[in-house]
């Protein structure tokens, strides 16, 4: 479904990704792990058309989307729920969700609104409230809900557990598992190694702008190097 080959990218003259290969198949959850500054968000933003990569190719659903505009990429069904949520603070919860179907999924808007409310009943309670007044957890729900409104074929979740309480983190990972069980392909970008590996099928570990490790999540969970760097034992 998503196929990244030899991706090189960065900001200005600084190259952050130095040739990354990554793939997500239909129906998979793939975890992209790595510490702060490893290049995870750079990868996301280049795949989603916010920046133009220096080199390499990105293919989605069989067509080349390398360096394409974000409008076209969303239209193709590749939707990112960004780190820091990036919701529209002055718009109501409802308007935020409706804008999720601005480019894609407009005809299914009413049905999808009902679907999102079913997943996050909490959002219905905040329906007409400006999104900026929501708690961190609610904002994360809204950001994911907004992403789902675009009827994604592949959903990229960038650090969905960041800033959430431990209990909410549990819920968040359970939810991601359920979304995937419902047929949605997911690229999960996380620092939370243990929980990500528990729900993912496969995983990549990004270090210094290259893929340092990759393989089935179950095998990586037992990998001594990974345990040492991320779990400290």
């Amino acid at each position, binding site marked *: 479904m998503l196929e990244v080959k030899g991706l090189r990218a960065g900001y200005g003259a600084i190259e952050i990704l130095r040739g990354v290969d990554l793939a997500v198949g239909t129906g998979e959850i793939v975890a992209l792990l790595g510490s702060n500054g490893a290049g995870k968000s750079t990868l996301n933003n280049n795949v*989603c*058309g*916010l920046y133009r990569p220096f080199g390499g190719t990105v293919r989605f659903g069989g067509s080349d989307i390398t360096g394409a*505009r*974000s*409008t076209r*990429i*969303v*239209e193709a069904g590749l*939707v*990112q*729920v*960004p780190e820091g*949520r*990036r*919701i*529209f*603070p*002055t*718009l109501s919860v409802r*308007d935020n969700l*409706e*804008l*999720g179907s*601005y*480019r*894609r999924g*407009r005809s299914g808007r009413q049905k999808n609104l009902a679907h999102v409310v079913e997943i996050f009943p909490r959002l219905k309670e905040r329906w007409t409230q400006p999104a900026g007044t929501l708690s961190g957890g609610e904002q994360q729900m809204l950001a994911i809900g*907004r992403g789902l409104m*675009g009827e994604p074929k592949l959903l990229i979740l960038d650090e969905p557990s960041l800033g959430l309480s431990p209990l909410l983190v549990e819920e968040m990972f359970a939810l991601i598992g359920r979304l995937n069980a419902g047929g949605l392909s997911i690229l999960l970008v996380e620092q939370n190694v243990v929980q990500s590996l528990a729900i993912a099928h496969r995983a990549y570990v990004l270090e210094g702008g290259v893929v340092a490790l990759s393989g089935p999540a179950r095998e990586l969970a037992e990998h001594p190097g990974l345990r040492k760097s991320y779990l400290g034992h």
Partner: protein
Amino acid sequence: MLDPQIILAGVLNGLLAGGIYVLVAVGLTLIYGVLHIINFAHGSLLMLAMYAVFFLWKLSGVDPYVALPIVTAGAFAIGFVLYRGVIGRWSHGKDENILLITLGVSIIADNGALLFFGGDTETIDVPYAGKIIELGAAFLPLPKVISCAAAIAICLGLGLFMARSDTGKAIRAVAKERQGARLVGIDVEHIFAVSYGIGIACLGAAACLLMPTFYVTPQSGYAFVLVAFTTVVLGGMGSFVGAAVGGFLIGITESIGGLLLGEQLGQIGISLIFILILLLRPTGLFGARA
């Protein structure tokens, strides 16, 4: 002490004048809210729109009110193309460049108008220009009543558009969260151009409503743009409601100031409000805290 009836008449006349101020200020505040720049070309583009109304009347006898849809649509198109072709293209994504480019556009427009239209004062003669509606002690000029009502209707329509339509919501989304907007597939550059176009369309409508009672010279824009800046600062930068309340307050201030201090000195009230707002409440009446 002045008769309360006369004060009331002054307030009514101020409200009527305020309608146009609201319209001009809404355009300015919309552009500010989305693009985060003061549109220095605002006054000059209003002046050009007023010339357009003047020439439509002079050359083909089109009544300014009939011209309203045409001039408004034309102003939108010019604003859209100006953003796409000049402002957005040459700013390279830097807000301070946009500021300078709009200033440049205004200088070119002002001097172009002087070159092609001359420095004379041009007016329109319409049969209803002198018609008066009597309301107690107040004599309300019919064209001002029409212009105020139309300005309010247009602003309400625009407000509804911003609240309900997908494009309106996208404009409000882009104003606060450009990255998030890109990620739902909003074409941010397109929304910038649409917003600029709507801001200029407000000027087109204002020009049509003004011309029956006002004159146009290449300097005509300045008077309004100063009032519009004050209105926007008074109401709060980027706030729609603020622009509406501010516009009417400024209208009343000007009118009452004129009653008490005379037509010329009455303008001092506007500057006074401007200074007081900056001293006491820099965010304006409805502005969000930075």
